[in-house]
């Protein structure tokens, strides 16, 4: 095959090797280059940084870094499960284990590293493992199933990650570290101690200053390890995670220059001693250092691709900042710059909170006005700001310790304006502030997701996202761009404006609203938003013909869709009160339809795994037993949780359960910008957790206190006391007003807490509107709520009574068959969806269903 193209062979398909190929494609290499790569492992590049998640909820497929079709579509030849065994530099040819021989013009070694196993007697016994590949993890998982105790040798970054993995497998977990503290490279003694305490609180035992001398087996099974101090530790398995060593054997065999202790020597261009051969990632040695983090590896891939393509102003590798921020076993740890204060004259400032278990250290220069480095354990929120202050040598405030305190003046020292354009904001993908600003200005980007997508900033570890957001905000403000809050491209209005138009014009359908105020066909953003506005204004049955196509996934089938396309069923259990008879009915229905059953956080019962065609049959039975829709599928009132109150509890001062039931029945089915949660507590002990709800009620000796705009979930926020010692009538009146005011004025998908945070005038203003009726709309708000209460219907009852609506629930329009692609396995006595790997075993892969019939 005659070809004028040059051939590039990339040896190794790990994270860095794959990144190089992506960069080559992105930089237009395909026109002049044939790209070939060898992948020793049986699968293409995957995310090793998040490897421990493989034991929690990720599959091998989830961890892949390769977008489907990348190699095929770009014509990149990849040899999976094959490795290069010989490089002939004179002939410029490589030979693989499977006997493939190919000539190259340029060669890139991205062979990575292997885990270092200390030379301890018995280190190859059955029950010893390393932690690097998915195959290693599979082996660990299989062996863990018959083990109780697991030990990780190595208390560094990867060792702790590995300990997390063992713990998630249910093992009694120990970490053995040779050094006197954990993470000796990143942490000082005090920081190591805080981390140790935090980790031991999570039931992972840490043993420092332990030199293992012997690994003892008995009858082919590992039993214990002996230490130099003559102590020992019983264990069933050992995972070595004591550092990495570069995979440099190919380079050694073909005579490339290596470091004294291994590693392929490279220069600023990532070139080895042979100008036709480059080395990148953990196999490369730059100025005597191996860089065992992914960010420097990615940077080397950037440099190598620039050099290979001979781009103008090609990037150079000048070493890398080994600053790091991670969450290890749920504990934040960060270390950056001159963390051990080795610079002449450097001073240390530390704040240790032994109660909260946090340790923070700043290293500053002799004058105390520039940051050189630092260590954070337990709370690393300040990391992004501190890193920027250090990297850009920004003057510190007079009292630098303030940077370490919560809501300190760190933000004041670092404004987006004094951050230089060259500042690296995203270290995973090497994106500078200048590049972000340019994207914002040149491409007219006004929202965070687009900015992330276009620049890749914040798409790696995500640690820089708050900074990226601030830069976006500052740039937009500078440009005088008003951030548009139009709900989408189809309506040039905010939700609040549209709500007003819809009510004033008495518009009762999406099509009418679109015809009058919008354009196009609509989309998955505006349709559900308008559906919700129509429902809260006019309260028509949501599956009526003009509305059915607008409903969000869950509303359109009145149930919550799950990952496999089946649904969960949650009947209303007002106030969390249920009779034994009704509880038995739920159990019988769950049994009859083989539904996975769980108790929800809102004091209800949820039944999972109902096929779409089963939903009307299940609900027919539920409705016949007096149950009604729980609206768990809707952006609507969910539950009003309650404690048992004064009827049973010896501390209760009011009947919280009765009030919760009354409130839940009043507001059931109320569609709102987002879901609404509520609770009623019978005394100040607050067992129902009302202060974490959108609206919460707490009994007092004299009546009820009303709290609003609280939130649990993603960003917990304490609710605010709106009014005290209310009688029930006033309470309901205020609630009516509050809820409709929120529904009318909030943005789409905005919970009450975020809505309140943006409300100008804050709590005082809210009190004026709700209690003092300063806008003169109280009567109107109450009337809208009364209309809702008067027109409420159980959507499921209406549905099962309407045959043509029931028909929508058939999986197929042209046959009664059910979805044949579903597959389940048993776990703890109930079913759950089969994973992809399990599906293969069950031989019910969907492939069978999508193969064209011949």
């Amino acid at each position, binding site marked *: 095959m005659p070809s004028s193209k040059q051939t590039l062979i990339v040896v190794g398909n790990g994270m860095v090797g794959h990144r190089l190929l992506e960069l080559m494609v992105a930089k237009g290499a395909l026109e002049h280059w044939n790209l070939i790569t060898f992948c020793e492992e049986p699968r293409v590049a995957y995310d090793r940084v998040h490897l421990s998640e493989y034991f929690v909820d990720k599959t091998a497929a989830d961890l892949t870094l390769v977008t489907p079709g990348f190699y095929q579509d770009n014509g990149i030849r990849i040899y999976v499960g094959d490795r290069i065994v010989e490089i002939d530099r004179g002939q410029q040819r490589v030979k693989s284990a499977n006997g493939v021989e190919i000539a190259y013009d340029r060669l890139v070694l991205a062979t990575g590293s292997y885990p270092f196993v200390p030379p301890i007697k018995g280190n190859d016994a059955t029950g010893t493992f390393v932690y690097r590949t998915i195959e290693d993890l599979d082996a660990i998982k299989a062996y863990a199933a018959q083990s109780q105790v697991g030990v990780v040798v190595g208390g560094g970054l990867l060792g702790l990650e590995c300990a997390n993995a063992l713990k998630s497998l249910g093992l009694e977990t120990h970490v053995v570290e040779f050094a006197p503290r954990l993470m000796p490279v990143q942490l000082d003694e005090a920081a190591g101690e805080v981390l140790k305490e935090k980790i031991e609180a999570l039931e992972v035992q840490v043993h420092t200053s332990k030199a293992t001398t012997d690994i003892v087996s008995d009858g082919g099974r590992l039993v214990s390890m002996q230490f130099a101090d003559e102590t020992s530790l019983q264990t069933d398995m050992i995972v070595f995670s004591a550092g990495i060593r570069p995979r440099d054997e190919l380079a050694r065999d073909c005579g490339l220059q290596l470091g004294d202790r291994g590693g392929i020597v490279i220069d600023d261009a990532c070139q080895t001693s042979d100008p036709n051969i480059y080395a990148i990632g953990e196999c490369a040695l730059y100025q005597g250092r191996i860089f065992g983090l992914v960010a420097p590896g990615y940077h080397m891939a950037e440099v190598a691709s620039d050099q290979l393509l001979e781009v103008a102003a090609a990037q150079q590798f000048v070493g890398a900042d080994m600053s790091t921020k991670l969450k290890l076993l749920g504990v934040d740890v960060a270390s950056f710059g001159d963390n051990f204060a080795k610079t002449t004259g450097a001073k240390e400032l530390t704040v240790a909170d032994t109660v909260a278990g946090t340790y923070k250290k700043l290293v500053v220069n002799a004058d105390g006005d520039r940051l050189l480095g630092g260590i954070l354990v337990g709370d690393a929120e300040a990391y992004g700001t501190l890193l920027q202050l250090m990297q850009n040598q920004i003057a510190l405030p007079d009292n630098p310790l303030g940077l370490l305190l919560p809501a300190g003046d760190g933000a004041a020292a670092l404004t987006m304006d004094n951050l230089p354009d060259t500042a690296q904001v995203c270290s995973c993908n090497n994106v500078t502030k200048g590049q972000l600003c340019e994207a914002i200005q040149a491409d007219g980007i006004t929202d965070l997701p687009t900015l992330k997508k276009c620049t890749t900033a914040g798409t790696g570890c995500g640690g820089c996202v708050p900074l990226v957001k601030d830069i976006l905000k500052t740039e937009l403000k500078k440009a005088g761009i008003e951030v548009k809050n139009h709900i989408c491209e189809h309506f040039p209005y905010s939700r609040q404006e549209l709500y007003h138009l819809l009510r004033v014009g008495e518009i009762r359908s999406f099509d009418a609203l679109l015809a009058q105020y919008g354009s196009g066909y609509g*989309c998955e953003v505006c349709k559900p938003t308008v559906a919700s506005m129509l429902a809260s204004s006019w309260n028509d049955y949501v599956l009526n*013909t003009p509305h059915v*196509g607008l409903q969000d996934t869950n509303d359109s089938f009145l149930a919550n869709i799950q990952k496999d*396309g089946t649904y969960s069923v949650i009947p209303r259990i007002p106030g969390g009160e249920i009779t034994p008879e009704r509880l038995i009915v739920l159990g019988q229905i769950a049994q009859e339809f083989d539904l996975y059953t769980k108790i929800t956080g809102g004091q209800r019962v949820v039944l999972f795994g109902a096929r779409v065609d089963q939903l009307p049959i299940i609900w027919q039975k539920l409705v016949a037993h007096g149950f009604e829709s729980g609206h768990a599928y809707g952006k609507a009132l969910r539950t009003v949780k309650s404690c048992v109150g004064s009827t049973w509890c010896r501390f209760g001062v009011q009947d919280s359960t009765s009030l919760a039931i009354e409130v839940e029945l009043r507001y059931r089915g109320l569609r709102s910008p987002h879901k609404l949660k509520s609770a009623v507590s019978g005394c100040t002990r607050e067992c129902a957790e009302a202060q974490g709800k959108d609206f919460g009620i707490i009994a007092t000796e004299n009546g009820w206190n009303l709290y609003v705009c609280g939130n649990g979930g993603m960003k917990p926020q304490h609710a605010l006391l709106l009014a005290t010692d209310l009688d029930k009538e006033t309470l309901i009146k205020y609630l009516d007003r509050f809820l409709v005011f929120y529904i009318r004025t909030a943005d789409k998908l905005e919970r009450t807490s975020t809505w309140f945070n943006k409300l100008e005038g804050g709590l005082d203003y809210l009190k004026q509107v709700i209690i003092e009726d300063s806008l003169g709309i109280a009567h109107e708000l109450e009337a809208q709520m009364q209309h809702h209460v008067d027109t409420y219907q159980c959507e499921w009852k209406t549905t099962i009574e309407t045959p043509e609506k029931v028909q929508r629930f058939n999986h197929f*329009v*042209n046959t009664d068959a059910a979805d044949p692609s579903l597959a389940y396995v048993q776990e703890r006595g109930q079913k759950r969806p089969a994973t992809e790997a399990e599906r293969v075993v069950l031989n019910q892969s*969907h492939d*069978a269903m999508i193969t064209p019939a011949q």
Partner: protein
Amino acid sequence: MERSMVQSTTTADVKNWITICPLDAIAPNTGVNALVGTQQVAIFRIGATDEVYATGNFDPFSKAFVMSRGILGDRQGILKVASPIYKQNFNLKTGACLDDATVTIPVYPARVVDGQVQVGTSCQVKQ
């Protein structure tokens, strides 16, 4: 991830038009799922018209057979359906994913004849 991709069918390939259901069985601006041979095919109806489109019912992102339950609409005038699970959008006419250029779902010819919705197939499928 390396699945055998199902090929789209073009009008020129059509050997058979399979009658699926009356047009009235599809509420305006919604989809239904049909079994065509051994394949699950999502059929969408634009507005209250007889403009219909057919795509595979398999959502490559969630790996569930759910596309027919997505919300219809347009992006910059391109007719599309949003996956009900993770909300990726797909061009109704080409099957191309509008949010990820590397992903495409199969599309099939669809039409309305005498009030009946039909899907074209290149296979000899018995009705």
